[in-house]
């Protein structure tokens, strides 16, 4: 039965039961009430009838009296009616009472009463009848008495009846009360029964429900404690919900059981898998750091074999030898007789090669007895199973692994092998690639280095080429220059030659003749004197030898004199030969030193040669003529110096030269100066000019004392001119003289005719403030004629810089602030370099530089920022604003000049 139905039924039954009981009870109560009402009503009526009988009995006595008393009045008349009426009433009451009360006593009483009544009625009827016959009849007392006694009895009986009836009522009420009590008792009884039945029923229902539920619950409880593989079932025949629950539970149990079985399977599989993965991971952990295949193979085989429970293994790696791939054994594990005979296999050769060829594992199950043995120190045994596995890279076999075991391989082991091999394939590939990459990287490094070498070599070669080029260019220039010079000289010579031809023909001829005529005998004289002085025969006395030496030296003097005269003539006629070439200064000086050192020693005069350390080793001039001049000057110096010193000082100087007698046009030239300074007798100021004239000496008297022709200085001067140089002299009488020969450092055209202005030469001793300022620094050709823009708001700075830079023949333009600077620059686009102050009104140096840099034509113009004390910030700001370099104030002129030379340097193309 369905649970619902049961519940409905049981509760419905209870309700019905209660209803029935209620109906029964109500019915009983109603019955009781109705019966009681009936009884009470009936009894009341009977009491009333009895009362009526009693009343009427009383009445009839009166009425009989009235009727019997004959009076004609109304009362009497009515008495008869009343009588009649009472008679009827009595009759009626009596009859109905008789009918109603069937009790014996009542019937008896009523019957008695009736009898009495009839008696009484008869009396009445007699009286009435008597009356009607005689109206005035008088009835005997006896009659009355009888009547009265009768009636009295009647009343008594009626009374009795009344009491009887009342008693009956009382009895009846008691009986009703009993009935009521019984009814109440019955209700209790009923309720008790109903309660019992209800409780019983409820128990039954609940029990019938809980039994099944408990069954289900207990089974379910069991189910939770039991594993899910064998679940209890609910055996319930009952249908309905519980039945369904039971069925559902059973189904669930089935499903759970199935599921748990599956789960168990899966779990086992997963465990196997995790073992496998664990092993694989273990294998994987052994080689992340490995960098060579050999190391990898060793690690792999020594790990995998014991891990898989196998006993022995070999690792073959594919290698390329002589264009063929071999699988070479590179590592092994516990292999007996590790001989060389199975060291390498080709593709398809042996099972190893075959495995590589087929790219799939080969398993040997029944290994023949003499195939291979696994052994230890104690013995050796046949392997049961051998597996040969290919290690695959991307699409090729990279290696082969052979593993032997004493037991048969289970599927898990096989899986492990495959997975491990898969893994290692990737790793081998990685290593091989890594090695390849490493190799490539190394190659690229080598190539990069090679590139650097080549670039450096190239740079060097470029440098060499450039140097060669420059040299060639220089040579070409010199050549061109020389050619021009030669051309000019040629022209000049031609002209001169013509002039000479015309003007000095006789003089030349004479001089030439004379010199020849003079020199020929003099030479023979000298030769002979020389021979004699050698005293070969030894027949000359010392005195004679002395004479001959005097002859020889005098002759030599004479020859010198003649040569000098000839030279002077030649110089004056312009026929002096000048052979300029590259000479070594040292050679010249060596010659001079040799010549004069003995003389100095002899005269006990200190003699020294001082050289500036910036002198060129080589310069271009006529060495013989140079020597001649120096000899002359030094001879003079020694001649006129009795004591003290003579020194020759050679320096490199910048000299101002007056061109073609004009005092306006001057030129600065780098020159070599040879100063011969002595501490001799000195020369008077007014004599300074005279001494250069031919055959003149400062003092006529000196010739007597010192001798000499007086030609030396004039010849020297003339030769100096021929060398494009000049001689300056300064002297203080009695203190000494200084003769300085200036010769150009670079060869100049002969045509130049730079005239030394002896007049302008200022004494070294007298007036140090000279117009021709000897510059101790070498020339700075890089700076010459360069146009420099100075932008500075400080007039003093501007002035100082301008003066300083103009000294180096630079062209200076100025501006007082940035804005003006830009304007000036635009007006002078040929400006070579800009000196830019930073702190300026209107527009400061930063802005000015930025603006200048924005103009494409000045993008690369060197701008030197003049910063106040090198502060890092302003320094960086300068560079950012576009300064090429910077120099900090206060400006060191030498530093500035150096820096300007760097930035004004232009390579000639």
């Amino acid at each position, binding site marked *: 039965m369905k649970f619902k139905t049961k519940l409905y039924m049981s509760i419905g039954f209870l309700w019905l039961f209660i209803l029935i009981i209620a109906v029964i009870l109500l019915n009983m109560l109603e019955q009781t009430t109705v019966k009681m009402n009936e009884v009470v009503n009936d009894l009341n009526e009977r009491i009333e009838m009895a009362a009526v009988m009693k009343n009427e009995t009383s009445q009839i006595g009166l009425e009989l009296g009235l009727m019997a008393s004959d009076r004609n009045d109304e009362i009497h008349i009515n008495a008869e009616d009343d009588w009649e009426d009472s008679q009827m009433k009595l009759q009626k009451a009596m009859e109905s009472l008789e009918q109603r009360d069937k009790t014996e006593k009542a019937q008896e009483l009523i019957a008695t009463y009736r009898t009495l009544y009839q008696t009484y009625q008869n009396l009445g009827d007699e009286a009435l009848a008597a009356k009607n016959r005689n109206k005035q009849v008088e009835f005997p007392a006896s009659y009355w008495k009888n009547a009265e006694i009768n009636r009295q009895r009647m009343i008594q009986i009626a009374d009795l009846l009344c009491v009887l009836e009342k008693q009956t009522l009382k009895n009846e009420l008691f009986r009703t009360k009993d009935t009521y009590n019984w009814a109440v008792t019955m209700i209790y009884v009923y309720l008790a029964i109903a309660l019992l039945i209800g409780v019983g029923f409820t128990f039954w229902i609940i029990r019938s429900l809980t039994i099944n539920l408990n069954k289900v619950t207990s089974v379910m409880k069991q189910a939770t404690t039991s594993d899910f593989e064998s679940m209890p079932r609910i055996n319930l025949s009952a249908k309905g919900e519980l039945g369904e629950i039971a069925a559902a539970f059973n189904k669930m149990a089935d499903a759970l059981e199935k599921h748990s079985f599956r789960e168990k399977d899966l779990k086992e599989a997963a465990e196997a898998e995790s073992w496998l993965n664990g092993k694989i991971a273990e294998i994987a952990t052994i080689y992340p750091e490995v960098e060579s295949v050999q190391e990898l193979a060793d690690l792999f085989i020594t790990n995998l074999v014991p891990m898989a429970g196998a006993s022995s293994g070999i690792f073959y790696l594919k290698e390329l030898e002589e264009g063929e791939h071999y699988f070479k054994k590179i590592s092994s594990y516990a292999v007996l007789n590790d001989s060389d005979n199975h060291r390498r296999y080709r593709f398809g050769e042996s099972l190893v090669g075959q495995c590589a060829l087929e790219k799939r594992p080969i398993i040997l199950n029944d290994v023949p007895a003499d195939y291979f043995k696994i052994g230890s120190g104690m013995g050796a045994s046949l392997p049961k199973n051998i597996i040969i596995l290919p290690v695959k890279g991307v699409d090729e076999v990279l290696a082969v692994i052979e593993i032997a075991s004493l037991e048969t391989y289970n599927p898990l082991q096989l899986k492990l092998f495959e997975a491990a091999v898969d893994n290692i394939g990737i790793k081998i590939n990685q290593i091989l690639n890594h090695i390849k990459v490493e190799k490539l990287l190394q190659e690229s490094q080598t190539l990069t280095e090679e590139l*650097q*070498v080549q670039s450096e070599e190239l740079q060097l070669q470029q*440098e060499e080429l450039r140097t060669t080029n420059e040299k060639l260019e220089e040579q070409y220039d010199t050549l061109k220059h020389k050619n021009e010079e030669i051309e000019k000289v040629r022209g000049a010579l031609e002209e001169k030659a013509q002039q000479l031809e015309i003007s000095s023909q006789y003089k030349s001829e004479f001089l030439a003749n004379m010199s020849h005529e003079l020199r020929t005998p003099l030479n023979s004289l000298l030769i002979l004197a020389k021979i004699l002085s050698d005293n070969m025969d030894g027949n000359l006395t010392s005195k004679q030898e002395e004479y001959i030496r005097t002859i020889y030296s005098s002759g030599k003097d004479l020859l010198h004199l003649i040569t000098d005269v000839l030279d002077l003539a030649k110089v004056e006629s312009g026929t002096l030969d000048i052979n300029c070439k590259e000479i070594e200064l040292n050679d010249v000086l060596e010659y001079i030193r040799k010549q004069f050192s003995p003389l100095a020693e002899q005269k006990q005069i200190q003699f020294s040669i001082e050289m500036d350390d910036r002198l060129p080793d080589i310069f271009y001039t006529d060495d013989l003529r140079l020597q001649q001049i120096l000899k002359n000057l030094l001879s003079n110096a020694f001649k006129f110096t009795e004591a003290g010193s003579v020194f020759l000082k050679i320096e490199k100087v910048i000299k101002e030269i007056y061109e073609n007698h004009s005092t306006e046009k001057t030129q600065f030239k780098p020159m070599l100066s040879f100063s011969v300074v002595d501490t001799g007798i000195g020369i008077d100021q007014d004599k300074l000019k005279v001494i250069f004239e031919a055959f003149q000496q400062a003092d006529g008297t000196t010739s007597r004392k010192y001798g000499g022709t007086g030609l030396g200085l004039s010849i020297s001067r003339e030769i100096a001119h021929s060398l494009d140089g000049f001689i300056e002299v300064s002297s203080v009488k009695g203190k000494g003289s200084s003769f300085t020969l200036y010769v150009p450092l670079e060869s100049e055209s002969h045509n130049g005719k730079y005239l030394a202005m002896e007049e302008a030469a200022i004494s070294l001793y007298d007036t140090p403030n000279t117009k021709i300022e000897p510059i101790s620094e070498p020339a700075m050709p890089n700076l010459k004629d360069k146009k420099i823009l100075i932008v500075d708001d400080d007039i003093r700075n501007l002035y100082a810089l301008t003066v300083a830079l103009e000294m180096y023949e630079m062209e200076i333009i100025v501006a007082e602030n940035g804005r003006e600077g830009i304007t000036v620059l635009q007006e002078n686009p040929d400006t070579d370099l800009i000196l830019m102050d930073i702190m300026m009104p209107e527009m400061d140096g930063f802005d000015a530089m930025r603006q200048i840099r924005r103009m494409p034509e000045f993008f690369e113009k060197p701008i030197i920022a003049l910063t106040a004390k*090198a502060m890092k910030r302003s*320094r960086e700001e300068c560079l950012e604003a576009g300064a090429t370099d910077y120099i900090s104030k206060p400006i060191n002129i030498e530093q500035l000049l150096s820096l300007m030379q*760097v930035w004004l*340097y232009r390579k000639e193309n």
Partner: protein
Amino acid sequence: MTLNEDERIRLHLEEIEKIEIELFLEALIRFYGYDFRNYAFPFLKRRIKHRVQQEHLTSISALQEKVLRDSETMKRLLTDFSINVTEMFRDPSFFNSIRTKVIPIVKNFSEIKIWHVGCSSGEEAYSMAILLYEEGIYEKCRIFATDLNNDILEKAKNATFALDVMQLYTKNYLEAGGKRSFSEYYKAVDEKVIFHSFLRKNIVFAQHNLVTDQSFNEFDIIICRNVFIYFNRNLQNQVHKLLYDSLSLSGFIGLGKREGMKFTNYGNCYREIDASDKLYQKIK
């Protein structure tokens, strides 16, 4: 067919050339004691062929004969082998790295010893001197600048450089983070600039042959730029050993822009301080 023939001949000639070069190098060792066998082969080949050309000879064997008999030719050959390409503050960022990454560490040493290997004409040594001077530690520094070539060392001692390169040097100086004005350090004379002598004070120029000579001191900083590029792998490793032995622990070494530490035997003994400037610190 002809192509193959040509190719064959070319290979043949190359083979001959290789043998000639090897014999030539052997001759140089035997007679002059110079060992160039471990120099980068392509470099040697080019240089030797260059010399052959310059001497108007036809073969390397002929050069061998001439070099053996004429020491002047040998001198010229040595000049060929020594590539003296250098600049002041060459690769400015390198010097910047020295300034910012090395100097702060060595600043408090009581004495700082620096070795410029292959200093050539001294430009980098002087650059280093300027840098140290600006960092205020020049007084306690000793710069040992060595080169194989004695002539170039003589040149280096003069501290005199051509005027035309000064613009580049100034730019380099500025890029290398120069703190003062570059012109403070030199004076222009003629077509040259002479660097002030105070920079020369703590520099020792000396001849040193990386191939044959040993370590001569322990240094805090070694600068060996564009030297390895002329060597083959063997010699590179040999020289790396020499430098490693000469460098104090935690000392610094700077290599050339295109050189590297990675593929040398000592790669893992150094920590990279600046990858692009090839600045390393010895860590073990």
